């Protein structure tokens, strides 16, 4: 791999230990994937923020890099709790203490402590063709597909290494030749709400191993729909890029039939709801919306459904979103309506990375296939995957309806 004199000097340690280690990570990955050189990144998004996933040694690694500083705008993945309202969530105090150590460690590195899987809804959206190093898998798929930015699916440490060096290795999805669709997926399924896009994403992720799908027949693809689809596709498989005819910016370059053909119909979608639900009846402890973080549109829809109602006293209804979106939802009155109905709008965290297993929850309803894929293993909890409207109904009744 070609390295500039300046990069060679960093590897010799001339700009300090942290920068040397971070560049070693970038170069090591580049060597592994046959990159020809390093390229600058415009932003990074770093996973490994919840103490639940990062752990003690991950935290020590982040702490060890100070006093190095991020040299490009860098934001964080969700933490394990609302950084202000964690007591209300029932997060244990010792967890909260460690979580705040993680946040402070990133702060010292000059990372912007926006803890969100949807930074693109909160002021951090890369432009078309821009090279970035993001690690949240749903955001990776979203910015590659919907915005046409370029990022590989980074791990937490490699995204952090890109933040400190401002560089990534030129391989994978940074290169034109690796962004071409390799299979056509024809949709005849009718897509209703966001959970249908999530179910479709789940199917795509499962069907497409090492394949970039070209979707034909999507009725629409709003920001929220692309967000739901991206998250599920990245969770059930490892999808980091899709093209959708008529909607995504790079799809225009690839008109005409390519590769293998797949088909998704109504029955396929219906099966996903059954496959991902681990229980069919009974009491639900928690209804959780916001995987990925809820948008203003979703909070508005929730407020409309909850206006003047009261959720069951035996169930919690939690929304997860980013801090900037919540501030706006407060101004517009949505948060007030939701919380009067007994729901809560939390920021900075989500139902996957919060320590739910330590908080007494055993059953959860979600409208996100991604949450349904991860929660049973990440938090040893039973899940129901259903539509947004049914999730709200479950919260009102306190049980599966």
């Amino acid at each position: 791999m070609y390295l500039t004199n300046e990069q060679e000097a960093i590897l010799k340690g001339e700009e300090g230990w942290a920068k040397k280690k971070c560049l070693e990570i970038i170069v090591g990955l580049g060597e592994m994937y046959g990159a020809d050189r390093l390229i600058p990144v415009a932003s990074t998004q770093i996973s490994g923020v919840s103490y639940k996933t990062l752990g003690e040694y991950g935290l020590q690694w982040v702490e060890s890099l100070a006093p190095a500083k991020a040299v490009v705008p860098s934001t964080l993945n969700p933490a394990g709790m609302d950084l202000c309202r964690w007591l209300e969530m029932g997060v244990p105090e010792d967890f909260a203490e460690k979580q705040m150590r993680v946040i402070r460690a990133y702060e010292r590195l000059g990372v912007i402590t926006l803890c969100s899987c949807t930074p693109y809804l909160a002021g951090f959206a890369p432009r078309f063709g821009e090279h970035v190093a993001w690690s949240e898998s749903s955001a990776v798929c979203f910015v590659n597909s919907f915005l046409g930015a370029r990022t590989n699916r980074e791990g937490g440490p490699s995204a952090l290494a890109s933040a400190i060096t401002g560089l990534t290795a030129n391989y994978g999805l940074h290169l034109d030749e690796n962004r071409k669709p390799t299979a056509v997926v024809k949709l005849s399924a009718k897509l209703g709400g966001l959970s249908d896009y999530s179910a479709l994403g789940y199917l795509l992720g499962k069907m497409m191993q090492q394949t970039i799908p070209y979707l034909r027949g999507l009725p629409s693809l709003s920001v929220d729909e692309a967000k739901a689809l991206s998250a599920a596709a990245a969770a059930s498989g490892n999808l980091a890029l899709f093209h959708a005819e008529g909607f995504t910016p790079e799809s225009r370059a690839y008109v005409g039939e390519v590769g293998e053909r797949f088909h998704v119909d109504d029955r396929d979608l219906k099966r996903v709801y059954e496959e991902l639900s681990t229980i069919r009846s009974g009491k639900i402890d928690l209804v959780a919306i916001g995987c990925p973080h809820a948008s203003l549109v979703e909070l508005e829809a929730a407020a409309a459904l909850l206006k003047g109602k009261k959720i069951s006293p035996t169930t919690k209804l939690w929304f997860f979103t980013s801090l900037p979106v919540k501030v706006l939802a407060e101004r517009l009155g949505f948060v007030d309506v939701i919380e009067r109905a007994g729901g809560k709008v939390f920021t900075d965290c989500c139902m996957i990375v919060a320590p739910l297993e330590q908080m007494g929850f055993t059953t959860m309803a979600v409208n996100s296939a991604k949450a349904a894929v991860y929660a049973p293993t990440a938090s040893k909890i039973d899940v129901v995957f259903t539509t947004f409207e049914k999730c709200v109904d479950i919260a009102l009744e306190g049980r599966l309806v």
Partner: protein
Amino acid sequence: MRVISCRKISPGRAEGLALFSPAPISFFGTIDPTTSEVIEKSHPLYGQRIADKILIYPTGRGSTVGSYILYGLSKRGLAPRAIIMKEAEPIVAVGAIMSDIPLVDRPESFDFKSGLHIIVDADRGKIIIP
């Protein structure tokens, strides 16, 4: 003496006794991070410790948390001295670089046995069996 060419992933040089696994290893799940013991019951190395060994295995698998688990092992003094893989993957690569553990892959031949005395010279892309 045998000299086997390989590809450097994480720099450095180390010497020790081989621990050979014919099966993949995931640092998240296969290894106990507090003892370095292989805890996955169906694994061929079940019950053995990877600490201080030249760990040799075909490929990795599993969660990205694996990088931090390898780093944690090294912080506790329980890391392998070097790692040889048939084909490296990013989780182990990043973990090895963070932990200053030499890591090489794609050796010309993958004919190793546990107990062999091995030198891994990642910087020169060589595995030496004296």
